[in-house]
Structures are given as structure tokens and as C-alpha cells.
């Protein structure tokens, strides 16, 4: 019987570990962006390697969680939603990794005057995802608190949009000295950072529905 086996305990630990990886990945991402803007490439490479390791650990945990849920028939009625939520959250850490890789490979030339704006953009975008993690944890322990936690995700996502629009406006309307290719490249990099909050919002939409269903 499940109560007498370690399966339940292991699965809970794995889910918690998965969320820890996402949480930590978001923190490291912020630090990596700061290091890149400060041209501290050694730190940036260290942070990139860390995010890479966290992403691979999250992938492994994701597969393991899904396997255990199927083989031991755990959460049969919520399995599809929980799997979808974990997939969505894994997308976030995947996006962190690919975004840092874009920085590493393409080495975007970000004008120093935009450093503050870029830091603000990455922090706000990451905050949306950071607020998602406690909401996802709450789904498992106190589902009736999920929706109030998700409000912050939506708030940070819309803030990210505003900041991104602001930076793009500066680049395309005020920085006449930059050529069009440079501007397009910066827009592409902004889009990558902004994508994190979009993914957080997508997961939040799913989580919100899941919370309603479980409370019914």
C-alpha cells in the first residue's frame, strides 16, 4: 500500500527538488545577466554552467516524476495537469538556458546607457517566474491560496511588457547612432529575456485552472 512504501515520500521530494532547481536557476540567471552587462565574462561562464547543470537536473527530475506517477498510479485524476504544469515549468528553465546561450554565442553589444534598463527587464521578467514557484508549491499543499499568489505573476508579466516596450522605444527612436542590424539584434535579445515572463504567465494560466478544479 502506498502509505507503507517510500514512493510517496520520494515523489514529494522530487517535486520539491524540481521547484528548487527552477528557483535557483532564476536566481543564477539574474546574476549571469548582471555579470554579462558588467563584462565579467568569467562569472558569466560560471553562471551559465550552473544554469546548464540545473536544467539537466530538472529534466531528469521531470522524467522521473512523470514515470513514477504513471507506474505507481499516483494522482491518477490530476496526473495530466500535474505533468502539464511540470512541462510548462521546465520550459522556463529551458528558456533561461537558451537565453544565456544566446548571450554567450551572439555576444550582443548592449550600450552601457541601457545597462540599468536591461537589469530591470531581467529582474522583472524573472520575478514573474519567481512568483510562480510558490504558487505551484501551494497547489500541492494549500490550493485555495494559489490564485492570490498568481496575481503577482500577472503583475510582473505586464510590468515586463512595459519595460520591454520602453527599451525598444529608446533603441529605435532615440539611439540614432545604432545601425538597423544592431537595433534588430538588441530587440531579439530583449525578446528572449521577456519570454521568461511570458512562459511564467502561460504556466500561471494552467495553474489557475488546476486550482479551481481541485477545489471543486
Amino acid at each position, binding site marked *: 500500500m502506498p502509505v507503507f512504501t517510500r514512493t*510517496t515520500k520520494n515523489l514529494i521530494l522530487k517535486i520539491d527538488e524540481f521547484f528548487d532547481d527552477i528557483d535557483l536557476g532564476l536566481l543564477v540567471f539574474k546574476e549571469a545577466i548582471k555579470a554579462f552587462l558588467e563584462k565579467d565574462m568569467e562569472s558569466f561562464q560560471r553562471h551559465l554552467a550552473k544554469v546548464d547543470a540545473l536544467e539537466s537536473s530538472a529534466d531528469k527530475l521531470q522524467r*522521473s516524476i512523470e514515470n513514477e506517477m504513471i507506474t505507481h498510479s499516483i494522482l491518477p485524476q490530476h496526473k495530466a495537469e500535474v505533468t502539464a504544469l511540470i512541462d510548462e515549468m521546465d520550459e522556463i528553465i529551458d528558456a533561461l538556458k537558451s537565453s544565456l546561450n544566446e548571450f554567450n554565442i551572439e555576444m550582443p553589444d548592449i550600450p552601457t546607457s541601457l545597462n540599468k534598463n536591461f537589469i530591470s527587464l531581467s529582474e522583472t521578467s524573472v520575478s514573474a517566474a519567481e512568483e510562480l514557484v510558490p504558487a505551484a508549491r501551494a497547489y500541492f*499543499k494549500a490550493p485555495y491560496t494559489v490564485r492570490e499568489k498568481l496575481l503577482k505573476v500577472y503583475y510582473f508579466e505586464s510590468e515586463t511588457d512595459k519595460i520591454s516596450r520602453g527599451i525598444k522605444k529608446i533603441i529605435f527612436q532615440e539611439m540614432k547612432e545604432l545601425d538597423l542590424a544592431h537595433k534588430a539584434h538588441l530587440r531579439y535579445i530583449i525578446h528572449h529575456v521577456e519570454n521568461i515572463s511570458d512562459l511564467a504567465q502561460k504556466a500561471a494560466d494552467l495553474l489557475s485552472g488546476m486550482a479551481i478544479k481541485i477545489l471543486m
Partner: protein
Amino acid sequence: MILFFLISGLFLGWSLGANDASNVFGSAVASRMVSFRKAAIIASIFVIVGAVIQGAGASHTLGKLGAVNAIGGSFTVALAAAVTVYVMTKFALPVSTTQAIVGAIIGWNIFTGNSTDSRTLSQIVATWVSGPILGAVFAILLYMLLKKFKRAAHIHLVRFESYIKTGLVIVGAFGAYSLGANNIANVMGVFIPAFNLHDLNIGFLSLNSNQQLFLLGGIGIAIGIITYSRKVMKTVGGSIVELSSEAALVVVLAQALVLFIFSSTSLSNMFVKIGLPPIPMVPVSSSQVIVGGVLGIGLYKGARNINFRILGEIAVGWVATPVASGLLAFVSLFFMKNIFSINVGSKTEPGINSANQIAEMMTGGAYVSGIIKYLLLGVLIFGILALIFYFLLERKKTIELQKSEEKFWMNLK
């Protein structure tokens, strides 16, 4: 010959096991929270235990309704009930074994000129109505309690579901016990007055004549569960699965409690001791109690679209099943008596039994008891082997999963 006459009872037991086990484990199996193998083993064991330990109460009431005093009569009555259940199930009509057997007994009473005890009959009919209502009340109360507990305890969803899963197994076992205790009367009740077997002693276990009959009936139900209930659990059980897992647990527990209440003599005696009226020991339809429970939860959740068709079908079943079964029993008894010249029973004179009948009972008694003794040993050995086989399979599954996981990550590296 004696054993041949028991076949109709065993057939009735088989159909009860095939149909009613889904009420106990249907939701758990259909939602894959409990595997069919595990459910079938647990249900089979506990149905037999419940029938042997606590089957006497409800059987006594059926005996008061009509004491079928010849084996030929018991055979025909059980067969009429079994055929009614089978045919009505085939046409997807809601049917209860309890109502079928009551109708068949009344048919026997009419055929043999015995009067039907109206007090017992009204007691039984009242329980058909109160069973689902009680099921609904229990379901609402238990559901409220469980919801409050879940909100206050802050248990991790995975852990809570694992408790529910374990709960479904325990409650299922209790449900199977109550099903055996309450519904064995339907299967073997009509054979009690016509059988008088020798007491059976196997070391730690001693079974009287009635308990031996209940054991046989219990085995019949268990065979029904193992051989045919998988399909029913996956289809009929699926309609209950629409509820959440905790609601399913509550509904099964409510059903088990109702069936237990209507078959526990000690609980009834306790009621009398504290000055309350005794609880009638009556076989109740488990399916109808389940429907009561589901409707109860629907009402609690504020569902406005209650399916009145189901309620109507149950009410129709209260009348249609006993009438159909009674008519069939009457016609079958006529054929058995006049065409096959089999003694189907006679008008009961209090305290008098024909010398022939007693001789028939006693000669067959020792023989049947001997067979039951070996059957019991066979069931025990089979049960132990099934348990060992189950644990080995579970272990193999876990090891295979671990290996495939390791292999996957090795290949990835």
C-alpha cells in the same frame, strides 16, 4: 443431489459478485488508483469473511418472510431470482438481488399457500427506501468532515492522494465485508430452512450449518468477482469516477456503513440496550445505496441538474423486480412440482417438519460438510498462493522500473 440444488444459489452468488463488487471497488479500479488484481483479491477474501462471521442477521429476516422448507423450493426460488437479475441486467435495467429474492420468496409463499409476514415485508420495503437516503446522509456528513480535515491539515497533495488510495483499499475491504455480511442472505438465505449440515471443525475454525452455507455462497460471490467483475468495474465504476477521489472514498464508506448497520446484530442489541428501537436486519441493495451516496454529494456541492431519471428507475425497480421475480418463481415452482415431481415445499405448520425431509437433510449433511471442509482448505491455500504471487509481481514491477530508469540515463550519457 443436494449439491446440485445449491447450484442456483451459487449462480445467484456469482451474479452478485460480478455486479455488486463494482459498487465497492469500481471507482478505485476505474480510476486506476487500485489495480483490479489487488481489488479482486481483497474483495474476495472479505466477502467470504463477512458472509461467514456476520451473515446470520439479514438471513434471519428473510427466513421470517418465508421459510422455504424443501431443497427443491430453495433451488427454484434462488433460480428465479438469479434469472430475473440476469435478464434485467442484460436489458440494462436497474436491478437489485435483494428485491429479486424477496419477490421470489413471496412467489413461493403464494404457491405453497403460506402467508407472507406483512410486518417483515414492510420492514424490508422500508429499508429499500431508507437505505439510499441513509447513504446520502452519511455521504454528505463524511464528505464535509473530509473536506474540513483536508483544508486544516495542509497535507501535500501526493501524500493526501496516497492516503485516499490506502483508504480506498481499507474502505473497500470493509465494503466487501459488509456486502458479504448483508447480501449473503440473498444468496443462501432461502437454503437455510432446508439444510441442516453437521458442524465443521478445522482446528482453529468451527462452522455451524448456516455458516457452511454462507461460506459456499461467499465462495460463489468471490468467483463472480474474480471472473466477471473486471468489465463491470471498468464500465459501471466509470460512472462514479466522475467524482473526485475523496468523494469516491466517501461514497464507498457510506455504502459500507449502511450495509454494516443493516447486518450487525451486536449494533442492533446496543441500540436496544440504550433504549432505542432495534435496527432491522435486512439485506439492502448496495447499488441503490451507492446511488444515494452519489446524489448526496451532488446535493452538497449544490448540483442543480440531479438526474431524476435515475431516481425514477430506482423507484420502478422497487416494484418491477420483486413482481417479475415473484411471477417467475410461481411459474417455475408450478413446473417443478407438476412436471418434474420435485418437492418444492409445503405449508409450514409451526414446530412440525416431515420425517422424510429431516432424513434427507441429515443424510446429505455429513457428505456436504466433508466437501466444504476440503473446499475451505483449497480456498485457504489458493488465497495464500495468490497473495505470494501478487507480492512477487509488484516487486518485479518496481525492479524493472528502476532498471529501465538507470538504462535511460546511461544511454543519454
